[in-house]
């Protein structure tokens, strides 16, 4: 086999520029495929993790686009619609709920949008839904005008427990000093960048008395999600509360199915790119076969059968596409950070923990696609080469 490989690889290197260009075509297509598959995987994992970090099974927001609301809830921000605090009591009384928390949020945008301070008003139940909420310094609110800071927010503002920060936003929010009571340990979630205030404090400072943005609900039994959601919808309708109730599993499946629709479109582009790459390989190998007609004739004169010649040309094609596949995967890995940055600019929502990494499944799948491309693109040139008559070839014709 080493003889076959040596002769095939040396034949490929005979025209290095042409081979590199052909290989680059395959590499680009495979890089696109690799990134697309990793994007789907990374996005879904990131989104699942983010929703899991919420510690809730059902999210309740005021009427409006629930996905927009979910994005605000996941990343923090200013939400133009509110629900009445009374609704929280309706929710709490519903059967099957293990824990729930009502949240109010607002944001102060400073320096033309360069700095965005997000404030979240929470109640005593919030930490119980957040899994591991630990303090690097200080503790829970020890007074009305106190705040807990995420680690990134504290670092950015350069404050520690005992220090004071001032909340103000022009004429909308008059300057109000609050004392830092605690700083959280790093959670690698959106909490790291938030400033937490007691719910009523935030409502008072921002003039949002008796208002909430979201209610998070944790269930006693996850298998009863639909049942509890239906009960909440009925209760909301009876009370004319105008709540938008949706299970997070539904949110995940809706977002991923939206993503899948986009993926089909992108996949179609990748398939076209692969086909173009394949045609490039076919043309290059066919050209090489024509150029080497006399050599192939000589090989047949020396006893190479049709199958031997077919095998040699096929091997050359396979080496080209596999090398292109490996180069494409390498290109995808090298460009992963840039791609993520680009996707964050383009996509309306990207999970915080979103990366285009390496996975063996995707690696082998891309290599298999490269091999299939080689087999498909190599068949016609290999058949042409195998059909060359040694007599005609040695005479100089085809």
């Amino acid at each position: 086999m080493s003889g076959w490989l040596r002769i095939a690889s040396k034949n490929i290197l005979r025209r290095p520029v042409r081979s590199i260009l052909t290989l680059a075509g395959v590499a680009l297509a495979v890089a696109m495929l690799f990134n697309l598959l990793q994007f789907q995987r990374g996005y879904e994992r990131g989104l699942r993790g983010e929703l899991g970090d919420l510690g809730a099974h059902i999210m309740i927001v005021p009427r409006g686009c629930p996905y927009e609301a979910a994005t605000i809830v996941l990343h923090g921000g200013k939400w133009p619609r509110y629900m009445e605090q009374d609704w929280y009591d309706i929710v709490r009384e519903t059967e099957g709920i293990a824990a729930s928390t009502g949240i109010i949020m607002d944001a102060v945008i400073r320096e033309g949008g360069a700095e965005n301070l997000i404030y979240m008003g929470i109640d005593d139940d919030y930490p119980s839904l957040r899994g591991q909420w630990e303090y690097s310094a200080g503790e829970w609110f020890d007074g009305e005008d106190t705040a807990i800071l995420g680690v990134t927010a504290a670092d950015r503002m350069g404050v520690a427990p005992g220090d004071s920060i001032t909340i103000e936003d022009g004429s909308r929010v008059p300057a109000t000093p609050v004392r830092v009571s605690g700083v959280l340990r790093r959670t690698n979630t959106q909490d790291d960048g938030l400033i937490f205030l007691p719910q009523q404090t935030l409502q008072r400072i921002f003039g949002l008395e008796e208002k909430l943005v979201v209610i998070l609900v944790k269930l006693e039994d996850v298998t009863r999600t639909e049942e509890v959601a239906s009960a909440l919808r009925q209760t909301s309708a009876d009370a004319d509360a105008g709540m938008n109730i949706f299970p997070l599993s539904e949110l995940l499946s809706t977002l991923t199915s939206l993503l899948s629709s986009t993926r089909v479109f992108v996949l179609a582009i990748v398939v076209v790119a692969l086909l173009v790459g394949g045609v490039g390989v076919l043309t290059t190998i066919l050209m090489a076969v024509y150029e080497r007609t006399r050599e192939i004739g000589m090989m047949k004169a020396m006893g190479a059968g049709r199958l031997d010649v077919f095998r040699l040309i096929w091997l050359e094609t396979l080496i080209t596409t596999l090398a292109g596949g490996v180069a494409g995967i390498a290109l995808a890995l090298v460009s992963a950070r840039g791609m993520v940055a680009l996707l964050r600019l383009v996509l309306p929502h990207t999970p915080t923990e979103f990366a285009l990494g390496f996975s063996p499944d995707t690696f082998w799948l891309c290599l298999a696609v490269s091999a299939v491309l080689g087999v498909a693109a190599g068949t016609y040139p290999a058949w042409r080469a195998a059909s060359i008559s040694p007599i005609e070839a040695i005479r100089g014709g085809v």
Partner: protein
Amino acid sequence: MSRNGQVAVARGLEKVYRVGRRGSPALCGVDLELRAGQFAVLLGPSGAGKTTTLNLIGCLDRPTGGELTVVGHSVHGNGSAMSEGAMDALRRDHIGFVFSDFYLLPTLTALENVQVPLIWRDEAAPDRARELLQRVGLKHRLSHRPDELSGGEMQRVAMARALINRPTLLLADEPTANLDTRTRDEVFELLRALSRDGLAVLLATHDTELAERADTVLCIRDGIIVED
């Protein structure tokens, strides 16, 4: 090879090429016999049928008439014809070719070029290739590629390549056509030396001076052996 040392036997060998609807006869009943150790020259002008004869005996092409037996295998005759695969195997295992154009693979070294025929057998024999290159006087050129060799050296590499499979029959089609006189003589003497070792050599040429130095001279004209 048959029991009486016959390597190739042709009786009434015919070849007609089809040109459109018309047939163009190239060989019109060639009779010849080659034995092990025989050094025969097929002498004739251009278009006489030398290459066609070599191609048929070398199983590169099929006769349209007559009988042909090569190394004891019936290639054509008695209403039967050898399959393409069997002809490939016969060439691979028993026949060596040397052409006027050397057809060396430009990306391979001399040592690698000599071993090319072994690839089809999934074999490698670098020691034998080295030995053959030494025999043709190219011990010092093992790792040189064709573009680093002279015409005579390339032809010697081609000869070593033709011998790597330990053939019974060596067919040389104008092997000295592209060489200067001194190199021509060296190549010719090498072929003679090979025949002395038991190899049947059939050399096609239009060079009468070379033909005078052969064991057997077969003069061919218009597709017929006119003098033996």
